[in-house]
């Protein structure tokens, strides 16, 4: 398919370069959207105004699809770090003639009655630390995944405006920018001496006049305010155990996935980062999965962030009205239910991994485990001191009523298989968890649902699972009724309380999963992926599974293994955004979506 006109322009010398490793991207954001910044100082993924909006920069999926680069010339080495416990990123470029530091962030507005702030502002400060450094700026937007073509209009001292697009955006810098010939990109460069600094700023407003904040001292204030905000937020973390730095960095990454305006939590800010090299398993994760959000809220609750849990429950209550009592697998951050999947065949995909998809066809699937995960989260929220009001109690009762009707149905399971519905053992067990949590919650809150019905459902489900979901010949729970397939999600049964840690059936299931799903020391979700889930291609290890196994046993040897697993995964993680989804069991690089860490 011929590419859109915006992607047909002559490539600049920087457009032809290789894709960075996924693990080399750092994440910045403002809890409404997020951007990926490459090691070389280029923003290569940004959707505006929200996570699932069309992209403005998408070079991570196609080197022609837009980027915003600020980098030193003649770089010999690059180091990066976040400013203390914040999501403000600093990249230091060493050149033969000097050293330069680039500070990147989305600014967070100080709410005052006097000062206007743009809807989104990306602020980039360049400081020369030593010697002399020449800095290059390249601003090359390609809106709507490269389908729309922009032009620029010079707005004098207000910078350059993007025109012919359905939003307002201005890029302002004290480095002189100018159009690069006929191409729809701006370029600029400057030579800085030690102690000098420059600013580059992108301001965005969707529906109103763009607010263009000043550079210089005012920009320094905004940057300082942003750093201060993040420090105050992360100071609320009450974790003080092993790997505290990793835990704080992970919770900061998780916070970037939350939507401050609605309370929703997206699974990832990206789409179509492949699960293996050139593989077709490239999905759009920029939505709010009930299951994954429940995992995240467990993390927030356990670290002392009750506000985020309350906001999510509020979102859940209001956003799911359209599918009342029947939860859809995923929603967008505003509760939109139609997330139709489309392919963008003109994009090359990350390192050739096609197709690039937007939307997610799994939104229409039945996945019964989400009810268990959701109610387990509500129970954890209540355990942490959260209260449920009358409408929330009615909502939970409605969920229970719905589940009475649904739990016997086959579903697509936790892994969103596309090979047709089955009776997944984990899904059934999570229905038991859902009813069990309702029993526990019913003792503390006035949930209008009969206890006897919950007891009966729990008994019936347990009998069903133990009779059909456990293979006595294999001595293991199996992925779905009547199969011999193993499934790493079964490791979670003990964590959710369906089985007791150390129970014989769990120990033997752990051994079976370890035997059948371990590749190079890491655990796959399931074996024979194409047959199991109905999608061509294979998979690497699914990162979170590696934390699940050691949880099921109270034995000292397993606890030692758990600590070892932590360290192993810590070694394999990307420094820049907690954990990648897929750890490399076959290749030396992490793959998969750029996402929050799952529950550990």
């Amino acid at each position, binding site marked *: 398919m011929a590419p859109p006109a915006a992607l047909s322009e002559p490539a600049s010398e920087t457009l032809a370069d290789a894709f960075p490793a996924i693990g080399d991207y750092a994440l910045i954001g403002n809890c409404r959207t997020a951007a990926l910044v490459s090691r070389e100082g280029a923003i290569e993924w940004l959707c505006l105004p929200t996570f699932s909006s069309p992209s403005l920069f998408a070079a991570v999926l196609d080197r022609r699809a837009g980027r915003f680069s600020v980098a030193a010339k003649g770089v010999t080495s690059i180091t990066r770090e976040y400013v203390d416990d914040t999501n403000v990123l600093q990249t230091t470029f060493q050149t033969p003639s000097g050293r330069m530091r680039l500070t990147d962030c989305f600014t967070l507005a100080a*709410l*005052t*009655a*006097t*000062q*206007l702030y743009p809807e989104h502002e990306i602020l980039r400060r360049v400081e020369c630390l030593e010697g002399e450094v020449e800095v290059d700026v390249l601003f090359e937007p390609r809106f709507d995944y490269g389908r729309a073509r922009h032009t620029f209009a010079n*707005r*004098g*001292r*207000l910078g350059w*405006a993007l*025109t*012919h697009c*359905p*939003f*307002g955006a*201005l890029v*302002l810098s004290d480095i002189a920018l100018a159009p690069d010939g006929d191409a729809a990109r701006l370029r600029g460069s400057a030579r800085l001496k030690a102690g000098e600094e420059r600013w580059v700023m992108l301001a965005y*407003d*969707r*529906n*109103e*006049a*763009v*607010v*263009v*904040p*000043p550079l210089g001292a*005012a920009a320094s204030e905004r940057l300082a305010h942003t750093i201060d905000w993040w420090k105050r937020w992360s100071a609320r973390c009450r974790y003080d155990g092993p790997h505290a730095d990793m835990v704080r960095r992970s919770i900061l990454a998780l916070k970037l996935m939350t939507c401050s305006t609605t309370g929703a939590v997206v699974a990832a800010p990206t789409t179509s980062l492949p699960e293996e090299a050139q593989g077709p398993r490239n999905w759009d994760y920029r939505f709010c999965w009930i299951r994954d959000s429940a995992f995240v809220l467990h993390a927030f609750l356990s670290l002392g962030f009750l506000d985020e849990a309350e906001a999510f429950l509020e979102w859940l209550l209001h956003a799911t009205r359209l599918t009342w009592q029947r939860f859809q697998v995923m929603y967008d951050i505003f509760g939109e239910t139609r997330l139709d999947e489309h392919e963008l065949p003109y994009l090359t995909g990350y390192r050739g991994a096609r197709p690039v998809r937007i939307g997610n066809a799994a939104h229409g699937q039945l996945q019964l485990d989400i009810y268990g995960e959701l109610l387990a989260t509500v129970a954890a929220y209540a355990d942490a001191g959260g209260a449920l009001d009358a409408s929330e109690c009615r909502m939970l009762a409605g969920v229970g009523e719905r589940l009475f009707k649904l739990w016997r149905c086959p579903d697509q399971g936790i892994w969103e298989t596309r090979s047709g519905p089955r009776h997944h053992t984990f899904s059934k067990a999570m229905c038991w968890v859902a009813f069990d949590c309702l029993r526990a919650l019913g003792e503390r809150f006035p949930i209008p649902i009969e206890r006897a019905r919950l007891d009966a459902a729990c008994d019936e489900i347990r009998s069903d699972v133990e009779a059909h979901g456990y293979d006595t010949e294999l001595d293991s729970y199996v992925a779905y009724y009547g199969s011999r397939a193993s499934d790493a999600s079964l490791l979670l049964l003990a964590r959710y309380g369906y089985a007791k840690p150390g129970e014989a059936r769990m120990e033997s299931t752990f051994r079976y999963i370890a035997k059948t799903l371990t590749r190079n020391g890491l655990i796959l979700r399931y074996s024979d992926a194409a047959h199991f889930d109905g999608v061509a291609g294979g998979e690497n290890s699914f990162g979170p599974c590696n934390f699940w196994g050691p949880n099921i046993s109270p034995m000292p040897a397993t606890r030692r293994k758990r600590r070892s697993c932590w360290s192993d995964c810590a070694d394999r993680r990307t420094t820049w955004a907690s954990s990648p989804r897929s750890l490399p069991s076959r290749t030396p690089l992490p793959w998969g979506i750029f996402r929050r860490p799952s529950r550990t």
Partner: protein
Amino acid sequence: MTQTAGEIIRILIWGFAATAALSAVMFGAQRMGYSRLSFPFLIGTMFTGERSAANAAGLMAYLLGGWLFAFVYYFIFAMVGHAGWLLGLGIGAAHGLVLLVMLLPMLPHLHPRMASEYQGPGGQRTLQPPGFLALNYGYRTPLTTILAHAIYGAILGAQITLY
């Protein structure tokens, strides 16, 4: 009820309806990405830098202004000695054009939070100015603004009766 009182009530009712229609077209154009011109936002930010408060206050002022402008239209119809939807449409279109050509380009000199392309942003002055025909807020802005005001005028022209 006297004839004058009845006419005032009629102007108030249809002034409100015309303002609502004008606002609907302007907001619709904003939400559909045709234009970023928001009179409530521009009016409200004259008084506060807090977006929500600015939009709320600006909307109230804008609706009140639209209501009062219905009386201006009445006097124009009275001066012409004739009222009708076509005349109203023309007056409304002219009204929109005057806003675009004269009033909005002057805003950087009048608005305490509006920057200018000559001086750049500074202090509280951070709002992008509308520019000629408010084209800075989207190239369809002249069209949607004139259309909205023409509809406003047409409604008033059709409903106002001269005695």
